[in-house]
């Protein structure tokens, strides 16, 4: 029992980080039909912005985080949208896929070439002290990560449903044409989505890097898991991506413990395939009316 609980909590903590990456991914899809294959690199990169801030520019951690926030919003939000997605949008999904794959390579190799190929230690934001609950050892860091992610996503959900801007963003996501007629500044709403994605990526990066360490190649595994989480949960719902992230974190741990460690990555993949075939809108998503 204690063991099961242990696996559950660890899985939820890891899964909540996947959820952050997955949520940004679904937001982009909703707003602009962009499948961002560089999403993993988007999570890898902000940790290096923080490191540049604290180590190269000599800022303290708080200022370093602010610096990273500004750079992330600029590069991963604004520049990404204007320079890469906007010119590609009229061409359809596939060229964007290839272009974001190329972007992923670009980001990965730029970090390797201009910062370092070595894994960099990253300061832990939360204490690593441990507690014992119901026979399971839980670190404060796990709990803090879980709470931070859940809070962020809840706030985001509230923003999208309760505020005027949020509803405009949703209207844009659901039907661009109608939103435009209703007087929504569609382009601005899409820009907000990209900025939120960049912010979420920064948050995921800061939470995950003390555990994962900051390394140029981290994006590959995170990106893949973010996809799986987003689709399993529901590609078009914020809550779906959250549930998907948590579920994948737990499934990964449980299958490694109880079924096969060698095939641990296979179970999330099989879950992905089954979900797509049986319930393409995802466990918590709503059926997509779009005919894309």
């Amino acid at each position: 029992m204690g063991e099961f609980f242990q696996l559950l909590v660890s899985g939820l903590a890891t899964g909540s980080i996947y959820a952050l990456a997955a949520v940004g991914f679904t937001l982009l899809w909703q707003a602009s039909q962009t499948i961002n294959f560089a999403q993993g690199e988007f999570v890898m990169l902000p940790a290096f912005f923080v490191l540049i801030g604290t180590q190269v520019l000599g800022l303290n951690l708080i200022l370093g985080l602010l610096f990273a926030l500004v750079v992330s919003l600029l590069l991963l939000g604004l520049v990404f949208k204007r320079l890469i997605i906007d010119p590609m949008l009229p061409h359809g999904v596939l060229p964007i896929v290839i272009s974001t794959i190329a972007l992923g390579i670009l980001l990965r190799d730029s970090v390797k070439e201009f910062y370092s190929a070595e894994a960099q230690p990253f300061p832990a934001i939360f204490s690593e002290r441990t507690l014992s609950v119901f026979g399971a050892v839980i670190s404060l860091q796990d709990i803090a990560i879980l709470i931070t992610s859940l809070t962020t996503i809840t706030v985001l959900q509230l923003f999208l449903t309760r505020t005027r801007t949020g509803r405009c963003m949703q209207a844009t996501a659901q039907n661009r044409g109608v939103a435009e007629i209703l007087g929504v500044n569609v382009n601005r709403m899409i820009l907000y989505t990209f900025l939120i994605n960049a912010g979420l990526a920064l948050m995921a990066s800061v939470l995950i890097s003390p555990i994962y360490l900051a390394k140029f190649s981290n994006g590959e595994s995170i990106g893949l898991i973010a996809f799986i989480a987003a689709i399993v949960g529901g590609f078009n719902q914020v809550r779906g991506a959250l549930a998907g992230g948590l579920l994948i974190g737990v499934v990964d741990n449980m299958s490694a413990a109880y079924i096969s460690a060698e095939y641990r990555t296979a179970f999330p993949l099989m879950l992905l395939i089954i979900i797509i075939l049986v319930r393409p809108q995802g466990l918590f998503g709503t059926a997509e009316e779009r005919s894309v």
Partner: protein
Amino acid sequence: MRLSKILMAVGLSTAMMIGSAQADSVKIGNVVELTGGGATVGINWKNAVEMAFGEINAAGGILSRKVELTNYDTQTNAQNSRAMVQKALDNGSYVILGPIYSSSTKVNMILTRRAEIPQIVGSEAPFITTAGNPYIFRTSFGAAQSMPKLAAYLKDGVKASSVGVVWVNDDFGKGGRDTVISELKKRGVKIAVDISTEVGQADFASDVIKLKNSGADAIFAYLHEEESARLLKEIKKHGLKQPVVGETTLMNQKVIDLAGDAANGAKGHVGLSADAPVPAVKEFAKKFEAKYGNKPDHNAIKGYIAAYTVKYVTEKLGKFDSKAFAKALHGMTISPKNEPGILMEVTWDDKGDIDRQSFLVEVVNGKQKITQILPKLGK
């Protein structure tokens, strides 16, 4: 049609790239992982090799010929490593250095053998030197040399009767795991649990629970640096008391920095390490760090030694003769007295494996502490 012109141009430019040599220099091909998953180890190796030949050239080269070093990127992929070794051979390389990934070495060493050009690799998998290839050499212990020492240590030093083995499921981890398990069994030590993990794995909870339940007396961990640190942290979190034993990577200073307190008490066998209590190695590590900004890992030391091996053997022969080079290196002993760049005295056997002093270490208060020096076997 224009297309054919383009093709023609492609062909011509490719043809022109091949050939053109400087008569007074000697070419050495460095085929190594510069992009892809192996870039971290590959760049360490490349930097050290460049540093070594930089020093050698500054001191007048080898037999007063300058070394013209060319780096070839394997992209951490076997078929590409083969292409790159082929290219290095076509370009007339005198000796080929690299690669580090064993699966790449496995395929491209066929080519150096056919071309009768010596190849000094950073790979540690046992099969590299057991294929009877007279042109292949290592500058570090292969798993077949280091694992018996570790197995003996687990049995006699740690007094473990059963061991839980955690390994990373790629060609680095698999080679070590297979060798250590067979060595442990040979000595009558039971394998309590055998756990495969993934490259880049974040959550080691399930693995540590398995270790906890296995009732093993000791844990043998054979993972890359980042994952080693995560595993150590998780082990500490769960309060496991068994000693964690490993090879070179586990006691790496980087792992210690990353894992913090959790690394204390980790012990094992170290072949090449920037923290070895050898002045020449420390000196090298200092120079390397000053130049490239990071502490050299064992792959960097391997590369550095490989470069100086080329220098020493060639000067000993008094001529640039690839075939004679391979012949001469078998059975040769190089001492830092004769060639300071070799760092520690080393002897090659008839298969291309080495024999050298090594260390048993333990992490105490965030520092490697040498508990025992294992002498060269041949002495």
